């Protein structure tokens, strides 16, 4: 018997003995006058949808757009992320320009995206496009250490996002729509640009919008980014910028 079949056989054998139901103590099943055994769940049917049960209990995600925006801003602040809500793409350009000047950026990395491209016009430093050209040659090039080094040497990575989650202050990025896997995590600053209609209430809403947008073919990587990279490993003291970005800048346009 191969390992797969052996493990599955062990699991099936183990589950042939019924166990206690959810929220039920083991002792309630076996001992002291409790005769009723909770049935194991019928195959393929969940007695109560966990998520439906949980929606009203989890932290609030806001009911209206205004509530969601307020929650998002509050949560991002708590996470020590930098949040800007600007009226136009021109205002966003000015913002990025002054960020680049202030921090003396030499080179920023970016990917093709309807919000990222206009943002970069006039940025006072060099740029590196991570998803340039098309086809195999470019894809292979990214395997080369030189290419990774180039991205590593950039001062900031600028990406779009799939959605923003008010409930937790998270930004959902994907490998398909946000410049791959490393752009949003390798450079020391991550700048996210998005529009207010991308703000969703809860994590579950973010999953819904993903399914809608990618219709069954999810990108190979999806990541909820909740604040700049951090660690508490040294005496449980919070330090930002452990291995990922030290700064997370969210620019909401419109």
């Amino acid at each position, binding site marked *: 018997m191969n390992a797969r079949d*052996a493990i599955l056989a062990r699991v099936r054998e183990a589950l042939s003995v019924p166990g206690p139901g959810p929220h039920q103590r083991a002792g309630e099943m076996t001992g002291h006058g409790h005769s009723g055994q909770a049935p194991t769940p019928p*195959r393929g049917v969940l007695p109560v949808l966990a998520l439906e049960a949980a929606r009203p209990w989890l932290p609030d995600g806001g009911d209206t757009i205004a509530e969601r925006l307020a929650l998002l801003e509050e949560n991002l602040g708590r996470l020590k992320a930098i949040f800007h809500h600007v009226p136009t793409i021109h205002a966003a350009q000015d913002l990025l320009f002054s960020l680049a000047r202030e921090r003396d950026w030499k080179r920023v990395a970016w990917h093709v995206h309807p919000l990222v491209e206009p943002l970069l016009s006039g940025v006072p430093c060099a740029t590196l496009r991570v998803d340039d050209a098309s086809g195999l040659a470019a894809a292979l090039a990214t395997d080369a250490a030189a290419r990774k080094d180039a991205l590593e040497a950039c001062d900031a990575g600028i990406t779009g996002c799939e959605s923003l989650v008010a*409930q937790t202050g998270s930004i959902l990025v994907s490998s398909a729509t946000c410049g791959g896997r490393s752009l949003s995590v390798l450079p020391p600053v991550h700048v996210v640009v998005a529009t207010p209609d991308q703000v969703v209430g809860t994590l579950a809403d973010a999953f819904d919008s993903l399914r809608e947008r990618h219709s069954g073919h999810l990108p190979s990587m999806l990541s909820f980014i909740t604040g700049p990279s951090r660690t508490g490993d*040294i005496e449980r003291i919070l330090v930002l910028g452990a291995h990922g970005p030290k700064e997370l800048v969210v620019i909401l346009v419109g």
Partner: protein
Amino acid sequence: MPHLSPTATPRPDHSVDSAGGTEASAHGAKKRFLHDAREYVRDTDHRAFLRRALAGYYTTRDGQKARYRDWEHARDAANLAKWNAVNRLDEMLVRFADRFEAGGGKVHWARDAAEARSIILGIVRDAGAKAIIKSKCMTSEEIHLNDALEAEGYGVVESDLGEFIQQLRGEPPFHFVFPCMHVRRGEISKLFEEHLGSAPTESPEELTMIARRYMRRLYVEADVGITGGNFLVAETGQISITENEGNARLTAALPRVHVALVGIEKCVERLDDLAVLLPMLATAGTGQPLTCYNTLYGGPRAAGECDGPREMHVVLLDNGRAAILADPEQRDSLQCIRCGACLNVCPIFKNVGGFTYGTTYQGPIGSVITPHLRGLGDWNHLSQASSLCGACTDACPVRIDIHHHLLHNRRNAVRAVPNRLERTGHRMFAAVAARPRLFAAGGAIFRRSLWLLKKLRLPLLRDWIASRDLPRAPARSFRDQWRHRAAPAVTSSRPTTSGGAR
């Protein structure tokens, strides 16, 4: 890649799995536990340090819990999501494996630690790896993966800051979520000075930046990245990895091959279950609304994506988990999401420290599952190392009945190896207690000879008396006092300041 030379201190992990060498004898593991516990308890400075380190945890966790509209009901939902997956585990595993392979990845099945090691060594060999980077992965601690890789001549570096520090120290994690919480910043500074040639510093920020700078090159140069996994999503065939530092994301982005080693119990049925479990894991584990990076991987780089590994492998590890599943009474301990909350609240953990357990998984949940993973007889003493206060059960976000399981382990151990002395003692007491005159006579003798117990240092009572004062025996028996009690004085106020008499 620079070769790391961990100082050759013996690993406090007392056991090596059956394939890797000798299993610690039953007596050995218990003896070492008692010895280490005694040593650690004496180190009051370090215990105070541990308490200070955890103090912030309680505040932030409680603050975040308050943001839930109903934490207790959310625990029910989290419990349900995991209960559902664990009780249909065969179905979940098959669905996960099929979906994941449809996404271009490869699933491997490992019955035990030896099989998992040989699978991973095979992948590493096939990849022609020169350098391996690893993010935090408790299952790899469980199978002693680093030792196996190093024995074959592969350099492997832990990228999680806490795990990196532990690797340099040549120690396993002290706590499975906070691996180096027992190490003071001065020691870390010295460690980095010695191994990385950095300048001494007392600042946690500077120390973190030293590790950050050191690790950057390694991400770029590594050919193989090894991670763990927090959840396996059956619906979508994705693995979910939770982390704060970004090291796991880099480990799964830059090397050519990504290997994830995940226990079979990590299944959930649907993506939506994570909408409950991810926030609960973060809040219970560290008091965060959500851990900094929660990342889902459905396979290697897909067509049209500009980076990411060429190959992705998931190794599904049984290694004793099916044995826990086979015990319906303790099946729910497989619902554990490894948040570490039960360690953080456990009075025993705080007083004996993580190394004393001598297990991969420390604290209450470790005491529940280790006897199953490694043999009840050898590890039952862990179930005795509990005050049964139930703090662990209250803290558990998926409602595992942890402290009752410790009781069950005790009962099972007594069934397996009956304690004759204890049984005889109970029988004798029962015989005396059923005869009122004998009981009275026995009580009279006992009251007069209680002081002797302390003096005699009887071998059975020595450990108990060593750290406790025996109460002073009352002059008269309870029955005597009851017979001659004064009429209850209803109006007189009760003395309220007599607590000092205790």
